[in-house]
């Protein structure tokens, strides 16, 4: 059964067409992440699901009930906002209890639920404090607490971690993931951060210009992107794109370097393409060349250590590419080296349609 079913949803703001016909089905208990660059319509989509924006056309069903024209309060949803949305004049306990009281829960039940949510989030000792006395991370926990005390069908998160610093963001990500495992509720999470999307999602819905570009499991999108946009959006560092021309056996780069592509058939020789190579699929030359790999001599231009790994920039076929290498593989720029590229994982993109071949 699906908890959320969106059919041909459109949203206009005056002349601006923010959501251009989206169909989406979210099964019960799934953690779905809406991700995309800013302006792609992901927040608008979430807010339309919540009923905070009016639908221009199309329909929304939550828990099998058509709620396209329902008020937010009648949609059986809970939501966590980007700036926490805590009421400064209420203490933590009253903040968490706000939604229950608005729905006229008995006070004993309110107490019980608030206590349980607070314990789950480790904020039991903060209940009498006011929001201004809390740190950013604590505020976010309270905001999440306010959502999870409710028995909603759908839990919505609108970029909840974007105001936290990097360390806290990692902690909270783990926390949210744990909560989902414990609560087994249907959650929809909006972010522009592809790492958050990859780590949290059961399923990623990647949006672009008000349309769904591709949806699937994180691994699905990472390994089998359907368009250049998807390939470039997911993964860090970003996928390298090298202009090339198809040959019978593989591709030829702009500087004449020929790379063999194993296991591909029906390639149209002479067609202009983009060769997509993930930095993770490029390694220093080993003692023997693995099957499906090609070996290329390069000159290292730039070295950026990240601790466990090092990101090395080097020219290939007339453009700069980044490779993620072992921490001790290269030490300084200007070094001559040989790299092995895993061509079985390479993607080819049709330059006219930007689709993956």
């Amino acid at each position: 059964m699906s908890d959320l079913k969106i059919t041909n949803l459109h949203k206009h703001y005056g002349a601006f067409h923010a959501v251009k016909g989206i169909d989406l089905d979210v099964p019960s208990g799934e953690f779905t992440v809406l991700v995309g660059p800013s302006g792609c319509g992901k927040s608008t989509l979430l807010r339309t699901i919540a009923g905070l924006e009016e639908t221009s056309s199309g329909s929304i069903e939550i828990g099998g009930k058509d709620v396209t024209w329902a008020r937010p309060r009648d949609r059986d949803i809970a939501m966590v906002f980007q700036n926490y949305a805590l009421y400064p004049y209420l203490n933590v306990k009253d903040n968490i209890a706000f939604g229950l009281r608005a729905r006229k829960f008995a006070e004993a039940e309110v107490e019980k639920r608030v206590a349980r949510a607070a314990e789950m989030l480790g904020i039991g000792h903060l209940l009498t404090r006011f929001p201004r006395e809390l740190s950013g991370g604590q505020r976010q926990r309270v905001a999440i607490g306010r959502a999870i005390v409710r028995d909603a069908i759908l839990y919505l998160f609108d970029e909840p971690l974007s105001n936290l610093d990097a360390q806290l963001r990692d902690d909270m990500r783990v926390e949210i993931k744990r909560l989902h495992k414990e609560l087994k509720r249907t959650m929809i999470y909006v972010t522009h951060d592809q790492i958050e999307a990859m780590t949290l999602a059961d399923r990623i819905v990647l949006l672009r210009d008000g349309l769904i570009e591709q949806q699937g499991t994180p691994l699905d999108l990472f390994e089998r992107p359907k368009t250049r946009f998807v390939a470039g959006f997911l993964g860090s560092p970003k996928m390298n794109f090298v202009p090339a021309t198809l040959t019978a056996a593989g591709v030829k780069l702009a500087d004449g370097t020929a790379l063999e592509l194993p296991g591909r058939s029906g390639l149209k020789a002479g067609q202009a393409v983009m060769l997509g190579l993930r930095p993770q699929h490029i390694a220093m030359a080993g003692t023997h060349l693995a099957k499906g790999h090609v070996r290329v001599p390069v000159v290292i231009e730039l070295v950026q250590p990240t601790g466990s790994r090092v990101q090395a920039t080097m020219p290939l076929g007339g453009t700069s590419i980044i490779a993620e290498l072992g921490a001790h593989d290269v030490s300084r720029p200007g070094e001559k080296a040989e790299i092995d590229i895993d061509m079985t994982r390479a993607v080819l993109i049709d330059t006219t349609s930007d689709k993956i071949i």
Partner: protein
Amino acid sequence: MSALPLHRRHGVRLSFRYLIAALLVVIFCFPVYWLFIISFKTPDEIFAFPPVWYPESIQFSNYKVLFKDGDAATVGNSLILASVSTFFAMIFGTIAAYSLVRFKTGGENLAVWIISQRMMPPVAIVFPIFLLYVWLGWVDSYFGLIILYTAFSLPYVIWMMRGYIEDIPLELEESALVDGCTRWEVLWKVVLPMARSGLFATAVFTFIFAWNDFLFALVLTRTEVTTYTVQVTHYFGGQSNFWAKIAAMSVLGTIPVFFTVAVMQRYLVRGISMGAVKG
């Protein structure tokens, strides 16, 4: 440049500032002092030449007369009119301001039309209102004056509350909507508490406007709901004023505002600076 060391110069400057400040306080407070002091004087002291700068003893007979004759009840009238009209102006004005801010109802034009109502000189509309009230039978009634004061304060309330409501983060309201509040509950449980200090500051000023009104009260009251401002002028005479009554009545009429302002002071200072900064 003076040859004095810096800290000495600083000290001299500070004493100078205190001197001026004290002088200003004397100038600005003396009339108030005089008013108070007359209200406690005996007729002999009031009509003494040269004037008596401070009375021998504080005596309340001037006030007793006002209470005995029932004149003091006009302060009660003013109190009822000003507080009830402030109450309604705050409610209607705040919800209207909320509509203007949150839903951009009527666009910029409506907002400008509303504020332009504030510029209307009372004397331009007091006459037609008088005719309207005669026709409706509202002259000399609480109801009529309350409606009038409420309407007259509305542009100010709407204008001020607009500024305060604009500062409320939209997320707070949206969160309440999702959490199960109706639109009215959002107003009640989120917007009003968030705009609390603004509400207080605006309410005090609205109260003072209604409290101070003289022209409307002069025209639209007869005997039943005479306000204290009108009552004060009843004691004016061509050559001989009822000095003691003028003073005592004025003091009675000043005390409620004085207390309101004293109690609300911290909201007012913030209100003025915010209102001033936001325009």
